[in-house]
């Protein structure tokens, strides 16, 4: 475990990881303010 969340920032990369790791995706739309 790291000390922060390792966010993906591109959908294609997240989908690749999801398929490879057989996991789902948490997509967070955020507003940095």
């Amino acid at each position, binding site marked *: *475990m*790291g*000390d*922060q*969340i*390792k*966010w*993906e*920032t*591109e*959908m294609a990369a*997240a*989908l690749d*990881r*999801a*398929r490879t*790791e*057989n*996991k*789902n*995706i*948490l*997509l*967070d*739309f*955020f*507003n*940095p303010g």
Partner: protein
Amino acid sequence: MDAVTYPDDRVISFIDENIIPLRVRFGVKPLTDDFNVKWTPTLITLDPEGVEHHRTVGFFAPEELIPSMLLGITKVFFDTNRFDDALMNLDKLLKGYPESDSAPEAIYLRGVSLYKNTDDPKPLKEAYEKLRDKYPAGEWTKRAYPYRLL
């Protein structure tokens, strides 16, 4: 979320072990339009093909975000007829976070998943009775109301 929830060790650990985190700035196209997002934070659970199964809008404290993510993962299994996997995740949610805001929907989905697995309507009635006893005025109690007759 950045100040309280995402730095929480329990949240970091859960995400690291269970789900791929993807962050997109609100307004970035085409994703904001593709997902019809109007407000932040909007959190969406996608399956590995990018299909949406669960959505929330608004802030979550750490002790609510983890069960909400479990519910999202459960819905991927439920929507794809993998009811054993859905039940495993629902049991994790209900044992680990029985007082969370996600628990009533989890009780409902557990009843439905058991029914889907067995064709026995008894779990539907049991789900209604649990909801009635614990959340007498709850939204999911109302949704389960017809099951009292089974």
